[in-house]
């Protein structure tokens, strides 16, 4: 049973903002299919009663105080930017609104 097909791969590539060529789609589809096929041993398990382990150690309530500390210098930050202007990062035209 095919778990993942070319359309899935294209869809996922779009979600992940990755351009993929047709060759890559074909290659990746096969490879991802193989991994998911292998993972069917996990898929087949009934673990409904088993709680998930998000963290190996049972830590909770880790906080920091509300005290300001110096951050990084703006010039240092903008110096590594691919494009900047006016003290801000510059990016090309945005289509669509923020979700």
């Amino acid at each position: 049973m095919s778990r993942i097909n070319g359309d899935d791969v294209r869809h996922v590539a779009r979600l992940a903002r990755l351009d993929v060529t047709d060759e890559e789609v074909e290659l990746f589809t096969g490879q991802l299919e193989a991994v998911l096929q292998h993972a069917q041993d996990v898929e087949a398990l009934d673990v409904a009663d088993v709680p998930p382990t998000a963290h190996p150690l049972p830590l909770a309530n880790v906080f920091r105080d509300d005290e300001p500390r110096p951050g990084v210098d703006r010039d240092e930050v903008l110096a590594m930017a691919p494009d900047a202007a006016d003290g801000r990062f510059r990016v090309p035209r945005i289509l669509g609104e923020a979700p």
Partner: protein
Amino acid sequence: MSGWETVIGLEVHCELKTRTKLFCSCTNAFGDEPNTNVCPVCLGLPGSLPVINRAAVEYAMRIGMALSCSVEPSIFHRKNYFYPDMPKDYQISQYDQPINVDGWLELPDGKRVGIVRAHMEEDTGKTTHVGGGASRRSSALDNMGSTAPAGRTRIHGAEFSLVDYNRAGVPLVEIVSAPDMRSADEAKAYVNELRSILVAADVSDGKMEEGSLRVDANVSVRQAGAEQFGTRCEIKNLNSLRSLGRAIEYEARRQVQLLESGDVVVQETRHWNEDEGRTHAMRSKEEADDYRYFPEPDLVPVAPDASWLASVESSLPVLPAQRRSALASAAGVAASDVALLVELDLDDLVGSAIAAGADPKRAINRAANEVAADLEGARRLSVESFTALVKLEADGKLTATQAKQVLAAMLAGEGDDPAALAAAKGFEAMSSDALAAAVDEVIAANPDAWAKFVEGDPKVAGLFVGQVMKRTSGKADGRLVTELLRARAASAEA
């Protein structure tokens, strides 16, 4: 729009006024130079990790308790999507285990609006869109002091956007109401009340215009009496209470028109345009967002213990609803009757005056009218002065008109002893004998008119009151005059 019911739910994002951001120690401040309150964490630099600000959690708990929510152990989730104002291209938020659930907010008129949840999340940076202009590449770079490395090609001349991350990582609480509101006025009352609560709890500035309070409205319509909800639209870009009201009314009308013409309402997000006075569908995205929520692995759960919960509970200030009900019961009136006083912070004044023996209705009246009109002056008005003034009026020593004038003088800072001010203005109340005598003289001088008055002709009433006022040089209390006239008429009939 008769026969139709509007259903409104509101999502309000509230910026917390902590000193630092939610996950890092950068200053949380509005209006600083762009990108001057940033660090590896809020810039999402490779290798950085978030650490939760304890004060932000405490403020979130305060909000939850102020809204009568249940404060629960909670975790953070990642909400994954791409946008340049999000340094990590995911937002750390809360999903199915939020900190506050199942509360309510009481409107001034007593109606309760359900609060589904109030969860924590980090704010995004700010993007400024620069429109497509004629500026060519080099001039754009020169004029704006670009720091782009030499030799890299740029595609300019078209639109671009500038991003400032000062606001990225600022703590937010998103408060989601149940779809319990039924009118634009109710929605505005909700936001107003919520804002008062947030300000009273000292967790936020609550300024819509500055963006520390942001409101999105979910609006749908249905036939009056229907049980199912209609399809809703989300309205964004509401920058003031006025916009909120206008947008809801516009949107409800738009949806009703669609449905009445046999069309359907499409579930979508719409943008309110204040200048045009209408909503627009937002440019459709290529596909629906799939946020791929999963628990934030860089953070551990937040589980406030009983003693922390108790200390937050006990640190909650008296909230507007409690103030309304306290004053209402002291005054023997409905909570909605004192809503304005509480909103204007005059409830202490009135409540104390009533406790000192002032007549409740008169105290409320004077405060809601004269004092409310001069809030600046109200600051120098003492409980004693106010109480004394109300007593003078209630005892009949001053007419209503005189009392207003003395009060105005006190508010203007002319003095704080109403009796002295009254005397200085030459106000004395008339003795009841003198008043009765004046009334009787006017009755005697106008026998024909009096006969009509006794028969119940309302037109002549004004004549008699006017004559009495003239005869007493304005010192008579109009209400007392009217009462006396009626009493005389009644005994004349008998």
